[in-house]
């Protein structure tokens, strides 16, 4: 069984989703049970992988027993394991929240939810460029369906933009893949990495162009300038449990950049090393700037949180532009922190909005909340964390990123922008909070208190921030080991092309290696 463990994060949601379609006519409660059990199982599945990855093993799973680079491989290194675990945990939390009502407003919520998990987890694991595209499609179509879930004009419009832009993005991604395959003749990421390093200067511009095209395709997923426009509308229109799960979706784009561009255009890439950096800089700085402006302009809490998502994307992108393992470690810590905090804030925005009558989460005065104190404390935690004020995880990540960039020539610009983002977030969230909690009219509060499960899930999600702060040392040590592993791509390439999981019963004889062995 252990040998098949690496494929479980894909198979579990896949079978669950298929089973849930199969039993689409079953009672909602039955579906919920199937759904939640699967989500529960998902956590230990990924935790085991995290445990294995932490011990410096890169698990490789050859689909169909075909050796890399010919078949499709799943590769789980520390980065993948980390993101898988985050997805599983966040998925479980979002599902528990969604089970308290979100899943009533339309059909097949649970099946779609697990397919979304499938797309995200598959994207985090695959070692094949085209397979990454396939998981992007799974992810896109499932998220689109979930976005429309329980439709309404706003939701339909936002999701329409979302899907059209993303389909265009898929086409762009395919052009990139096609160009790379046309030039290098392979789709396996490790194999691509090897071949890119052998590309001569005369062909380098074509590969570079392909890389940049894919950067844009991933950037669209990650919500990078000039393509983030779909995000604020889509995320703030989504039902809360879906929006919370979406917090990990922008990370898929970031992961893809980190993985694909890290492998293909890292320091070892010869003529092409670092050829994405300049655009990463320009686009990430632009993203940060416009997201800060958007945050100020937000009229609802969910919109504000959506721009915080874009800010977090911009922040991580800048660190990718710097391309230094120390900074990367900080960026990964930040990634964990921002994912959970933002997800928690989406959930919280729903709890708050539900107690404000028709005003919902609009930042205008309304009736007092039914639970001003407990929700207020939660808001305080979330806001403090995402602004980056001590003593929560946002502060730690800011310090980590700053420390890593101290001597970088562009540090003044980066620091200014990040500090400005913090300040603007402070002003905006404080204004928002004082409106939501304090500027009340004379109407009596709604007697309806938050559903205890929803309340608990929101609290747990937000409590990740203090937990990440208290146990910052082990977490940072882990993210550092992730960054170091990413900085040594040979490990990855070795693991994929070197051995792999050859449990062949009647495996075909291996052909002579195309590349003549290991570098």
């Amino acid at each position, binding site marked *: 069984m252990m040998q098949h463990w690496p494929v479980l994060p894909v198979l579990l949601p896949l079978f669950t989703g298929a089973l849930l379609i199969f039993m689409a006519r079953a009672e909602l409660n039955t579906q919920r049970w199937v759904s939640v059990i699967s989500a529960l199982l998902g956590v230990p599945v990924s935790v085991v992988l995290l445990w294995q990855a932490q011990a410096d093993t890169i698990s490789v799973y050859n689909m*169909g027993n075909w050796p890399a680079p010919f078949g499709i491989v799943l590769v789980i290194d520390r980065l993948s394991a980390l993101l898988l675990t985050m997805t599983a945990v966040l998925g479980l939390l979002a599902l528990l929240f969604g089970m308290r009502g979100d899943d009533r407003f339309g059909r097949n919520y649970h099946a779609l939810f697990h397919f979304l998990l499938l797309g995200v987890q598959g994207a985090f694991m695959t070692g094949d460029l085209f397979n990454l595209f396939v998981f992007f499609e799974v992810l896109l179509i499932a998220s689109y*369906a979930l976005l429309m879930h329980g439709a309404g004009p706003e939701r339909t419009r936002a999701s329409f933009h979302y899907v059209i832009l993303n389909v265009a993005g898929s086409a762009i991604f395919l052009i990139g893949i096609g160009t790379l395959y046309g030039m290098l003749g392979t789709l396996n990421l490790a194999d691509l990495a090897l071949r890119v390093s052998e590309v001569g200067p005369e062909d380098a511009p074509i590969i570079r162009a392909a890389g940049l*095209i894919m950067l844009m395709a991933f950037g669209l997923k990650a919500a990078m300038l000039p393509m983030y426009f779909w995000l604020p509308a889509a995320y703030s229109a989504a039902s809360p449990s879906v929006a919370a799960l979406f917090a990990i979706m922008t990370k898929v784009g970031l992961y893809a950049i980190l993985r694909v561009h890290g492998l293909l255009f890292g320091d070892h890439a010869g003529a092409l090393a670092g050829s994405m950096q300049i655009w990463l800089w320009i686009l990430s700085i632009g993203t940060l700037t416009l997201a800060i402006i958007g945050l100020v*302009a937000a009229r609802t809490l969910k919109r504000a949180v959506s721009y915080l998502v874009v800010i977090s994307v911009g922040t991580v992108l800048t660190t990718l532009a710097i391309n230094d393992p120390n900074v990367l470690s900080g960026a990964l810590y930040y990634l964990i922190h921002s994912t959970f905090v933002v997800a928690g804030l989406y959930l919280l925005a729903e709890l708050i909005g539900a107690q404000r009558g028709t005003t919902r989460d609009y930042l205008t005065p309304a009736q007092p909340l039914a639970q001003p104190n407990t929700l207020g404390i939660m808001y305080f935690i979330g806001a403090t964390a995402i602004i980056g004020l001590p003593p929560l995880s946002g502060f730690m990540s800011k310090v980590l990123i700053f420390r890593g960039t101290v001597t970088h020539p562009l540090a003044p610009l980066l620091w200014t922008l990040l500090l400005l983002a913090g300040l603007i977030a402070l002003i905006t969230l404080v204004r928002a909070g004082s409106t939501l909690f304090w500027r009340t009219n004379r109407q009596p509060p709604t007697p309806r208190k938050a559903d205890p499960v929803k309340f608990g899930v929101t609290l747990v999600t937000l409590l990740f921030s203090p937990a990440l702060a208290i146990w910052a040392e082990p977490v940072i040590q882990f993210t550092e080991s992730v960054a170091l592993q990413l900085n040594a791509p040979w490990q990855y390439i070795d693991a994929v092309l070197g051995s792999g999981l050859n449990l062949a019963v009647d495996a075909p004889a291996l052909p002579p290696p195309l590349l003549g062995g290991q570098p």
Partner: protein
Amino acid sequence: MLLALIILLPFIGVLLPVWFHRHGRTACAWATALPPALGLVLLFSQAPAVLAGEVRRFSLNWIPELGLNLAFRLDGLSFLFCLLILAIGLLVILYGRYYLSSDDPMGKFFALLLLFMGAMLGVVTANNLLLLVLFWEATSLSSFLLISYWNGRSDARRGARMALTVTGAGGLAMLAGVLLLGHVVGSFDLDVVLASGELIREHAWYPVILVLILLGIFTKSAQFPFHFWLPHAMSAPTPVSSYLHSATMVKAGVFLLARLYPALSGTELWFILVSMVGLITMTLGAVTALFKHDLKGLLAYSTISHLGLVTLLFGLDTRLAVVAALFHIMNHATFKASLFMAVGIVDHETGTRDMRLLSGLRKYMPMTAMLGLIAAGAMAGVPLLNGFLSTEMFLGEAVAQRVLGGWSWVIPVVAVFAKVFSVAYSIRFIHSVFYGPSQPEALPKPPHEAPFFMRAPILILVGLCLLVGIVPNLIIGPLLAAAATTTLASPLPYYSLAIWHGWNLPLLMSMVAMVLGTVAYLNFARLLRLWERLPAVNAMDAFENFVHDVVIVRARQVTGRLENGSLQHYLSLLILGTVVVAASGLWGLERLNGGVPLSALDPPSVAIALIMMVTAIYSAIWHHERIAALMFLSVVGLGMALIFARFSAPDLALTQLSVEIVTIVLLMLILFLLPPRSPNDSTYAHVVRDGLVATSAGIGVGVLAYTVLTRPQQTISDYFIQNSVTGGGGTNVVNVILVDFRGFDTFGEITVMAIAAIGIFGLLDGMRLFDPKKDPNVQWASDKYPLLLLILNMPVLPLALMVAVYIFLRGHNMPGGGFIAGLIVAIALILQYLANGLRWSNNRMQWDYHPLVGAGVLLAGLTGLGSWSFGAPFLTSAHDHFHIPLLGEIELATAMLFDIGVFLAVVGATLLILANLGKLKSLDTASEENR
């Protein structure tokens, strides 16, 4: 450990007031007092050692990776501040017990107060710069909650927001400064930093570090030009003002000046920046204070002025100035806290703080009047009170310094000027409130004396003012010496804490200031008229207006323009962005042509290409006529299939063909429900823009394709051809790739189809659209179900099913496979719908397609899982030869089972979509069909 406990106690005790709240207000106050009282005891237990010059340290690793550790130190300086924080904290708790009304949630108040106290203790005892920043921001946060305690009031909310914004911004700057400092020194450990003064001052980053850290200090200590938040923070309850805004939080800034004095001071830049900011703040505060009619406003500006004085002292280039600064910090804390408390009593017992209404309160509250008089005397620097001593020292240093070279005389002159106002507002404070004719009828409440325990804290503080003023050495001599030694990090210069130093210049300056101040107060009315002629700026309104009108409105404009809700706009940005970025990458390519010769053009290829191009352009031109555009589009798709066929890819051609048909038919069904023409809402400029974007993208892709295709290629596809039969058991490499080599991709894609189907189902479920036939402008064919179609259709279904089975079975070796077979079945069934109508078909296929879709995906998955029982990875295929009667020798692969899954999923998904599209038609149409 004891040290850590002092800081921890308030945090541990945070829940005490919340818990004891239900046991009454006195119990709540007692419970709250417990942590600081214990802390004070612990602090005193350390007194002998610390006053003897020892430094107590405590350290616990927290995040060594970050350089952030729980390191604390107790030296003379921290001892002094801890004492202020804990002792005044206790008094404020006692005072607050009587100040808060029974409507106010006292538990929350005291909990926040304890939180603040803990944070403040952390600031003054932190032995790690990052830890210091951490507590620093924690004081900002907790003070925000304290200022906004009466959150129902707009001024409280706005004042609190402004305070947090200003101090928060400063804190961010300080964080940057501290990080740079830590990098220069190589450690955030304060012991190391304090010992590295030389290194820091000589580093190229020193100016940046200094300015950033000073920004944090100046915002926190309300120094010009960041002083404006403090007066508005006065909307806090008075205990908060007296604790945070006189004794502790605003002192955090000057504390840090003292703390980092050994590391940062001693340069020209330091002296100029610190002294000038201090000088301006001191003067500005003193002058403004005189003209404030609100008692708390007066005290707020007076606090700003005194903080400026302390800052100025730290910026003077004499060592004794530091001693004076520390001395004044202590003195100011005692007299200002007591004054705030006195104001609180006045406010509490009369209902107003407006000096224009208050008068002659001496009669009603003699005790408070007396205490206020003494405290105000200390504020004015009257002899025998503590304020006098530190003011004398200050004036002495102002004379002795040489900061400004030839212009150094400016400082003492300005100091006397500020002192004049200081005296004047102190007189005004006392005279206008407690003296003059009594007119109780003008007040909101009949005035009377406050309860004893509310006065007690003032009594204690004022007693201290007197004691320090009369016997300074006895009371605070050792403490001041210890604190100053720490700050200067070297043996102390000589000074004497005595009341009488003989006739000297400082004393003369004091006397001049006293006289002139009295004169100024006597001419107050005239001065006020002058003052009122100055343009009045309300900092809070200015701040709020700036934030709202400028920042928010502008941001909304920019965001609105970028995110204008137009999909065309977003798409053009996406495509244009990609073209620009990709083109920049391609820049520098020497030859477009890579050397591989192009094959000769043959007429069929040219013809197909031309047809595709023309129809593609037409579909764009005719896009308003939806059906026509769709027709053109379908031609493009068919052209694609032909190209695949032309270049020997029959599998692709077949797939493309069937996908094309299914798509077009489904689209036609949807178009039936939409208006036939789409509105024309693009301007000419938009059309040009879109045309340019599309052209550039087309050229881009063309160039890329040309460069790639003219270059020699070395691919892994040879491997697939070699291993297709031996490893995959099929001669059709494309199919073996689809179901075996890359079966996982196919698995993913059928999942996508399944998701799309249930997604569309979810979208359409329960949706009803208007019947398009109601539109009189549209001419529909009169023949609803053409006879020819009906008749021809009948044999098609069985034939199509047979073809599908054939295509499916031969898939592994010849063009075909589950995907295509599924599409063929789907097309045949769609035809039934088209020919016979919805009702007829639905009556014959009354099942839910969900299970079919699910079963397809499940079957494919289970097939893949089967290989586990052989110990092989997921989706590993097995194949063998079987002899089947009638059919003869046949080779079966497990991949076929997988293919059946694909087949089911495709059929199910298509039908699920189709059935729901059909249901969209309104009931009218359905009933028509029955006729």
